[in-house]
């Protein structure tokens, strides 16, 4: 797979796990993708004063052990539940990696936009009422952006590099980028990367204030789309140096990153930043656009985002790449989306399958992308790309290879 002209050395994905509205584990995620129905439903976790559909995790979450109780948050619990999922083998492979490489040589980089904000919101209710924070509130360990990464580090008994990336909706993809670089620079032998984000009032009401929340399950790329459905998820991937023992594993080939330099919450009208991220990824991997067999779109289902992304995709790929958006199934999992959708693209390669775009009936007349509506099986796929674009004009495109 490594091309002669590649600037970036691929890294192996030696384990991956996910938790979302689709359930726990990659098999549950895959079943939702082939079932081709929305998993979105009205929010139950807390009240918001408007109609909504969300991708809320209903899977029972594992409790944080007593010794790490200071770190207890829904976000850390979602991460722990995904980590411990036996099917994903992330924890099993990490324990093996500790013996192989030592605890200081395994890094953790978690992308998140919410971190433990859900708990902080409850603490503020108490602050406003009683003029002080609750006794058990610990801002740095529960809410500050690195809280979940640090919790995982302590839970796993690791000692090396550990931080959070928080670049809004590109966070999960940027964590993968940073992990690949740490390995290629020999700063780590293995890195646990991913994205973890959980539902909270601030994001729901914030996106609503921008008039970007749909009152129905979102409809990515559809001409009648009217906004996003927010979701929550953990997507975890264990990255390791490529060697003979993991030759048959999927690989992260490269991640392309860019900035729009245009506006804090509106994408560049011609999709310059999105184009640049995809082109940078192709360049770093030493690939041509025609080498990409499947593109998982960012496709959030806002009017402007999907229009700009289709313009950018057409500029980079013409109409030659099969693409689809999966947020009609999972919701937009924000800081976790880049990791969750890299896992979806990985499942596509493993299963030789292209997910459909739930919610899409008809694209805009000016959209010339090959947007796949219904699941396609027995597809000869070798290389896939996953797009993530966030507030602040922060963009990342991940390329995965079989």
């Amino acid at each position, binding site marked *: 797979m490594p091309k002669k002209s590649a600037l970036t050395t691929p890294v192996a994905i030696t384990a991956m796990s996910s938790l979302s509205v689709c359930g726990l584990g990659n098999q549950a995620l895959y079943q939702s993708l082939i079932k081709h129905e929305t998993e979105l439903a009205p929010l139950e976790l807390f009240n918001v004063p408007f109609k909504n559909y969300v991708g809320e995790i209903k899977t029972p979450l594992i409790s944080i052990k007593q010794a790490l109780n200071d770190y207890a948050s829904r976000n850390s619990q979602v991460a722990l539940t995904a980590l411990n999922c036996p099917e994903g083998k992330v924890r099993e492979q990490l324990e093996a990696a500790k013996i192989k490489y030592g605890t200081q040589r395994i890094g953790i980089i978690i992308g998140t936009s919410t971190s433990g904000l859900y708990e902080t919101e409850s603490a503020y209710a108490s602050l406003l009422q009683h003029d002080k924070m609750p006794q058990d509130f610990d801002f740095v360990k529960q809410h500050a952006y690195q809280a979940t990464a640090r919790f995982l580090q302590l839970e796993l008994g690791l000692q090396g590099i550990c931080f*959070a990336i928080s670049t809004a909706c590109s966070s999960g993809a940027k964590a993968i980028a*940073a992990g690949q670089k740490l390995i290629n620079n020999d700063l780590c032998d293995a890195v646990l990367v991913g994205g973890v984000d959980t539902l909270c009032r601030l994001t729901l009401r914030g996106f609503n*204030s921008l008039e970007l929340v749909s009152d129905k399950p979102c409809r990515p790329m559809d001409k009648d789309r009217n906004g996003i459905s927010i979701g929550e998820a953990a997507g975890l991937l264990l990255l390791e140096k490529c060697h003979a023992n993991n030759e048959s594993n999927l690989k992260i080939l490269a991640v392309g990153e860019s900035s729009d330099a245009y506006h804090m919450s509106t994408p560049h009208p011609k999709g310059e930043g999105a184009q640049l991220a995809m082109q940078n990824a192709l360049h770093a991997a030493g690939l041509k656009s025609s080498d990409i067999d499947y593109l998982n779109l960012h496709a959030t289902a806002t009017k402007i985002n999907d229009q700009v992304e289709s313009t950018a995709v057409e500029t980079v790929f013409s109409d030659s790449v099969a693409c689809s958006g999966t947020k009609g199934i999972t919701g937009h999992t924000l800081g976790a989306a880049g990791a969750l959708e890299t896992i979806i693209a990985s499942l596509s390669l493993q299963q030789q399958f292209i997910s459909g775009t739930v919610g899409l009936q008809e694209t805009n007349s000016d959209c010339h992308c090959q947007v796949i509506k219904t699941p396609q099986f027995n597809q000869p796929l070798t290389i896939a790309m996953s797009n993530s674009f966030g507030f602040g004009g922060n963009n990342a495109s991940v390329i995965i290879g079989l």
Partner: protein
Amino acid sequence: MIHNSLFIKSFALCCSDTELLSAFNLLSHEVDKTLLPAAMRRRTSLSTKMAITAATLACEQAKVETKSLPSVFASLGGEIQVTDALCRLLPDDNELLSPTQFHNSVHNTTAGYWSILNQCQAPTTAIAAADDTFAMGLIEAWSQLQQSEQTEQLLVCYDEIWPQYLAAPIGKIPFACALVLSTQAEGSIANISLPKLSESVNKDRLNPEWVNLAASAPAANVIPLLMALHTKSNHPIPLNSGIPTWITALL
């Protein structure tokens, strides 16, 4: 090509407490609001203004082209005041949030405004790592630089004033520092070794004034490195004041 050392081309500090910093022999600058166009000035927090002031000064000193410069923004709390203001509205279901405040609450707000201000489409990232925020920022910047076709990289470490009910004394003192890092020796002021974990840092021997300041201003973890640039000391330089300790050294 992987390098085991990194060059520092320039640094600049933004902290309103200039007396405090003169104790460390460091020159500090006030926030320069005129760096931002009026609309951006109104919308941005102290956090973003401090970070942009430090970054602009460091880039001017290093004479680097900001339009193509990749950047790492490292902060524990980021837009903490914006987040605080929004959190205060949430207990009431009927309170409407400001859309501008909401998109300005993300951790990469400063990174976003910096890229807009400089029309820079190069990658930018926003990270956090509690006490290790500066150490991890330096590692991430170093790591990006090695894998990039660019030879320069901006690292900005900053935290503004925090409400003291969140995590006192963190955020008592607003402090921002920007460094321009390079793979090239030309025009550099120092060469440092790759940060690593140290088994042997004795917490009792750390400068107590610095440890105190770093407890109130997470970004002030950069100070021992800046002081070493003056003294040219070849002792290990701590990059955080906690245990375990990340260290580097002048080469």
